[in-house]
């Protein structure tokens, strides 16, 4: 991504990579560092932003940056194995290079949220875009009134960042709640769907911002339930994901109504989103 050509990516080297989950659509997390020190220094993303990452010869894919800038001079991406590009990404290991351009899109207004309680509600791979908020709030804990996380997946094996949750659950300045869809052996957290767990926890909407991301069906029920709990549209945020190619508002496909997800999004307040046709298509 040079000054005069936004389509040309930077190279970044994978410092570490690991599998978060298994199965056909497994999720692999990459920790990458830009090769060019100048890029490393100038790169500045905000929680919620995305980057186009890719493998030369295979293509690029828009992936949310799953770390907070407060964590250090590296980037993290959690990638689910789906199509041609993500399959190629999954074949990379520490020492291999990937291409990165960005950061793209808007971000969560974490500065505006100062002094508020933050509630994240994630499902499956949807926790990846929420993780930067969690990390950002953790590193600026004093500026926020609270941090509650609800996170669920189909089974224990499908939960991302499991180790981090285990660590966090030991802290008393935040609370995290894990759930899986179906009972399984050795699981000592909640069993049930995320939207139900949200109702059960019954968080107060008072001075709270709720951020959700996950499969479309989960988001739909979470939004309904947040409403039931008394959250106003302005208190609810989510991020969208559509098919993208350019990442910079040119190629045309990612629009939901008149909103280009790559530029106007991916973060939307529900107060905006509810009027966008196609947003929940």
């Amino acid at each position, binding site marked *: 991504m040079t000054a005069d050509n936004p389509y040309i990516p930077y190279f970044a080297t994978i410092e570490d990579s690991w599998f978060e989950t298994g199965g056909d659509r497994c999720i692999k997390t990459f920790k990458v560092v830009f090769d060019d020190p100048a890029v490393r220094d100038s790169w500045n993303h905000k929680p919620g932003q995305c980057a186009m990452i890719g493998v030369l*010869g295979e293509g690029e894919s828009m992936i949310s940056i799953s770390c907070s800038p407060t964590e250090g001079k590296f980037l993290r991406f959690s990638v689910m194995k789906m*199509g041609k590009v993500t399959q190629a990404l999954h074949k990379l290991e520490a020492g291999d290079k990937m291409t990165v351009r960005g950061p793209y899109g808007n971000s969560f207004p974490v500065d505006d949220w100062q002094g508020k309680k933050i509630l994240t509600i994630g499902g499956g791979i949807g926790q990846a875009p929420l993780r930067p908020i969690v990390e950002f709030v953790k590193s600026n804990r004093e500026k926020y009134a609270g941090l509650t996380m609800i996170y669920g997946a189909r089974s224990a094996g499908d939960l991302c960042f499991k180790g981090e949750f285990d660590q966090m659950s030991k802290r008393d300045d935040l609370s995290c709640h894990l759930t899986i869809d179906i009972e399984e052996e050795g699981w000592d957290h909640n069993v049930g769907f995320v939207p139900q767990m949200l109702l059960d926890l019954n968080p107060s909407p008072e001075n709270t911002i709720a951020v959700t991301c996950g499969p479309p069906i989960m988001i739909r029920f979470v939004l309904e339930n947040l409403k039931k709990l008394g959250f106003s549209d302005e208190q609810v945020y989510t991020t969208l994901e559509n*098919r993208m190619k350019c990442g910079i508002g040119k190629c*045309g496909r990612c629009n939901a109504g008149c909103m280009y997800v790559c530029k106007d999004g991916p973060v939307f307040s529900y107060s905006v989103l509810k009027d966008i046709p196609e947003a929940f298509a």
Partner: protein
Amino acid sequence: MLLNKEKWPEFVEKLIGKNLWAPKLEGEAMRFALVAEGEEVSLEYGNTRVPPKGTAFPQTETMYRFQLGNTDMQEPKLEEERILLGVRPCDARAMAIIEKLFRWDYDDPYFLKRREMLTLVGLACNDPGLNCFCPSVGGAPDSAEGLDLLMYDLGDSFLMESVTTKGEALLAETKELLTDSDADAVKTKEKLFADAGAKIKRTVDHIGIPEGLPGLWEDPLWRRVSASCIGCATCTYLCPTCHCFDIQDEVEGFEARRCRMWDSCMFEEYTLHTSGHNTRPTRRERTRNRINHKYSYYVDKFDVIACVGCGRCINLCPVNIDIVEILRQVKEELQ
């Protein structure tokens, strides 16, 4: 300035050395192509089937080349300056309209560089086509928007009016073939092109449409107008304002390139997510998006309708899906 038609061959001849592209008959198809011989240039073309947008936004272009396992990337040398002769006003307007998108926040280097190197010499339409409706969407048979130089066919001669400095320069270079224009010529021109405008029968009343369209989201009209759609890209590929593209990597041995090529919102895969989820799963949603994009979203973002009324999508739709007719129904529903 005036160019007597007797001097036309000389005029063309003069431009040939400067990388001249003009409508040319290839097989049975009239299209913009590099001119090698003066007589190849046709003026009897109504309009080309494929618009000249490809001169700034080629159907396929290499973004950069690289070798597998190597971090060097070579950007292609973009083509040299060229002159497009005989561009219709609608197509020139379209260039100006899509330029807004290619400048939106991020400058698109490929489009902008190519565009910069083009000199567009327009030819006003004396005899608009069957399905032309440019006046309805802000154009005219003699609109100069987006052009560098506009020629008016006055019968025996062309009246040449420069629009930009590029156009002026071109006139200066050919000035020995030109004579000064006079009041008569201007009068003839005005009369001719008022007549030309009057010949256009098809109209779109777009008032209220940009604001109204999103409200018709679930209207049954979308199913109705898309029922016969076969999902091809004729309407979009031949549209001078359609600008969507796909990016693909192509590999041969160890050599590879990343390139982009036109894409169409009428294709099923256009919005098909690898998960199998499709935000616009049927032709109904895709047709709705096409109309909305042109007549609402683009207006919302760039304050101009992304349709220049060239009529190509009507002329060439295999199943007679007619945007004027669709917009008439939209209007009807809105009222």
